[in-house]
């Protein structure tokens, strides 16, 4: 399984270099930032990835950074690290949609597992975004047809239901297959399911 890139934001230079060295041995791409504000400016131009944020930083906390990133569309899976092990911060972190919460110093195994889970979450996230993008290319009629194909209806059943000729329905199916880049009925069903606009 390929890991999504990891973006580490921590004001401590020692922590940054150690974690990048460690993750580098796992072949995980990691970019580090010492200044949350600078990262906030860079984020929109980055490829979606997993956010590894320190809770306590000067001027802005990891939670606040997470909220601001979400506000500008970078609502990527986030792991908050803290030296405080604070119950209150933890509770608020999960409320705010953070996927994991790790106490420093972070053990290698725990970190890798958390990153893998977050990466998976990002994959689902990316998959859904891709499906939504593909389905959005279809016309309203094509979307209707896709929906019915996804439910396992035959061309004839679709034609009767929509009062169209089976020929026209086949034309629609051909167009859909071209736009979605697949002829698999199972793939049609998956895209119909997750490709609904949010």
């Amino acid at each position, binding site marked *: 399984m390929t890991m999504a890139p990891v973006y580490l934001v921590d004001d401590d230079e020692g922590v940054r270099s*150690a974690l990048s060295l460690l993750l*580098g041995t796992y072949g995980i791409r990691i970019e580090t930032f010492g200044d949350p504000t600078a990262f906030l400016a860079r984020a929109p131009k980055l490829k979606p990835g997993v956010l590894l944020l320190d809770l306590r930083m000067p001027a802005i906390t990891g939670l606040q950074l997470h909220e601001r990133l979400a506000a500008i569309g970078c609502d990527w899976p986030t792991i908050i690290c803290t030296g405080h092990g604070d*119950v*209150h911060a933890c509770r608020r972190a999960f409320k705010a949609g953070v996927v994991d919460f790790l106490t*420093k110093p972070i053990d290698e195994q725990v970190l890798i597992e958390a990153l893998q889970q977050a990466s998976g979450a990002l994959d689902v996230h990316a998959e859904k975004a891709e499906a939504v993008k593909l389905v959005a290319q279809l016309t309203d009629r094509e979307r209707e047809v896709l929906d019915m194909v996804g439910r396992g209806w035959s061309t004839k059943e679709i034609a009767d239901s929509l009062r169209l000729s089976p020929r026209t329905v086949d034309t629609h199916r051909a167009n859909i297959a071209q736009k979605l880049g697949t002829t698999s009925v199972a793939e049609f069903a998956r895209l119909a399911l997750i490709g609904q606009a949010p």
Partner: protein
Amino acid sequence: MMRLPNPDPAAPPMHRRLTFLRSSAALAGGWLLLLAAFGVYSATSHWQAFEQEVSESGRALQRAISQRVAQHDAHLTGLSALGLAQAQPSEDFDLVAKSILRFYPRIVAIDLVRLPSGTSPDVVSSATSGDGSTVDPAQVSRAVEMLTPGKAAYGADAKPGHYRVMKRMNETMAVSLDIDGAKLVEGEELPRWATLRLSTAEGPLLETGVKQPASEGFLARTVSFDASIVSATQPLRLSLQRHVTLAQLLPPLPFALFAAISLAGLVLVRSLLKHRQDAVLAREAADAASRREALRQHETKLAHALRINSMGEMASGIAHELTQPLTALLSQSQAGRRIAAANGLTDTPIDTVLAANVQQAKRAADILVRLRAYVGKSALEAGVHDLGRHVADIVALSRIDLDRRGIALDVAVPEAPALARIDPVEIEQVIHNLIRNAADAVEQAGRADGRVRVSLTPAGPGYEIIVSDNGVGIAPDILPRLFEPFFSSKPDGMGLGLSLCESIVERFDGSISAGDGVKGGAVFTVRLPAAQDRQEREEAAE
């Protein structure tokens, strides 16, 4: 740390006005006023009593004398009828005349006078009681000369205090009574104190009773009664007088008694008032002491909480600071082992060393976990409380210190309760810290018009407590690190105050921020969520 104010409870002015009674001069003055009032009252009432007595006695005498002079007229009529019935002087007339003299001692002589018919008048018959004077027939003749028969007239008598009443019987005869004026008043009728004067139109007739003193005496007065005796023949004027001395108007014994009792009373009242005043002062002193004691206890409680919290904050700060290098150490060592393994160096001495590093880093981390657990043990005593009350309380406590440092402290708190789930001691500590920081900043700026403002306002779903000052403000390079533990801009600062404030506020789901004021100085804003459900509000009401 704060110090208590000097024990100098200023007594309220209310009790100042009672202190005049402590002056002996005022006491004596009050006493003299009382005596004067008593003197005036006593003199007035006695004077009225004397006036009444004199006038009552006078009227009684006037009645008695009027009756008596009327009797004289009756005797004259009787005697003249008897005289006329007998052409010649007879023993009958003498008999009646003697009998009258015996029964009426004031009539001292009765004379029957033949009026002249060319020759000189002569006395036909005369009776006298020894006191009587010898009648002068010529005088009687002159007195009755102008009268028509049957009429009577008044006449003077040679003897002092005597007078005569004469009646013309016919052309040739007249009768004359010699009256001793002093006997017009019978012995016991004249009061012992009285001076009686009888006078006629011609002048004084007599004076009897007590002698009037030559000089009046100090403040002595005379009470008088004057009246006329209504009689055609004896037009007398009666005058009754009483000499009244100061001692009678103001009897010394009651006066002395009054003086003694009133003085004793005043002294008693003064001592009662003084006692009460002392009690009031003592109570006020006790109240002030208990207020100071309450403040001191509040301060102690706060100081205790500060010590505990500072210790916790320090431990937590140390843990945080150590965590960072520990994180680096652990991760570096774990990375090192992976690099060693990738290079076929597993189980070589370098791998063993790195494994030991990992183990020791984890051991240090465990110590930090235990330290945090210990620090976090201080139970959260959160309940629903009125923020306004606690803001006002802590401002009152801080005011003592700021007053001493000459810094004004303003507070604005809404009247409606601002309910939040907090531990009051902890939140008071936050505001106390912020006020102290503000006061330090004002002092650092060296301004004479140093001012710290504390306000509580509803804001969004919660409340904002704003502490602002007109001090030096916050340097831009310091601002981002302001709430970091062990970071301080003060030379002797531990750097725990604001870090502690943040920890406390976050414990109650609040936040704290700092910035520059619009007109300079610094502004610290503490935001706390409002207590939400009804149950929490009811909890606060209990």
